[in-house]
């Protein structure tokens, strides 16, 4: 009798891979699924359940289901994908240098002068001197947002 194709192991791996890729391309854009990546973990958990059930029937009922070899390979890959994601989320993204010398609340913000996208010099002083379009008055405050950039 022809043995059945063991779809569970393929679905399992696919879900783990989709879970991994959907984080940077989708879920990381929304703080609610970015800060604690519960949606990604949920997809991966379902994927691992499929992978384990697929493997169990490949080895438990080999006369009915295929997938001992493919299942083993995909099972290891699934775990590796989940492991890589956990490494990224629990370790790699936390490797930031301490910033002990950053200006603290109550301290004077260091002055700077940098080019904007139209190559005009902009300094803290110049920002507070120019009126905001929205209010027609100089700003009461400036949010400085430092980010990593393309590099």
């Amino acid at each position: 009798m022809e043995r059945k194709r063991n779809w569970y192991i393929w679905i399992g791996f696919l879900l783990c891979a989709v879970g991994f890729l959907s984080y940077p391309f989708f879920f990381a854009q929304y703080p609610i699924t970015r800060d604690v990546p519960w949606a990604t973990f949920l997809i991966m958990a379902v994927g691992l359940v499929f992978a384990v059930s697929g493997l169990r029937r490949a080895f438990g009922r080999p006369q009915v289901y295929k997938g001992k070899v493919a299942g083993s390979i995909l099972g290891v890959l699934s775990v590796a994908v989940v492991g890589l994601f956990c490494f990224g989320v629990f370790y790699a993204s936390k490797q930031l240098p301490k910033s002990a010398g950053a200006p603290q609340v109550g301290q004077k913000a260091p002055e700077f002068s940098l080019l904007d996208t139209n190559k005009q010099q902009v300094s803290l002083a110049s920002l507070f001197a120019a009126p905001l379009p929205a209010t027609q008055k100089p700003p009461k405050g400036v949010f400085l947002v430092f980010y990593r950039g393309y590099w």
Partner: protein
Amino acid sequence: MAEIEQLGVEVIAVSVDTPEQSKDLQKKAGLTYLILSDPNAEAIRKYDLLHSKAGQDGHDVARPGEFLVDSNGVVRWVNLTEDFRVRARSEQFLAQARQLK
């Protein structure tokens, strides 16, 4: 973002990208606030936010950090994340902007 400006607070982004790269980003993402270029990390160093060699090709970048400065040039709020995935949310910015007299 428009809401923050209505409260009289301007938003400025700073990175090591060149003005051209930042202009690209501005266009693609439809950003309205000013983006400043700090290719030699001068301002980034002054705010002690240098993350050396963490960018592509070992380039220095800034670690994420957010500051609210009042019109006297005094820092009123600081947010330094310990995880670059986790950054300040727009609600936090709004709440801080509202508190600013």
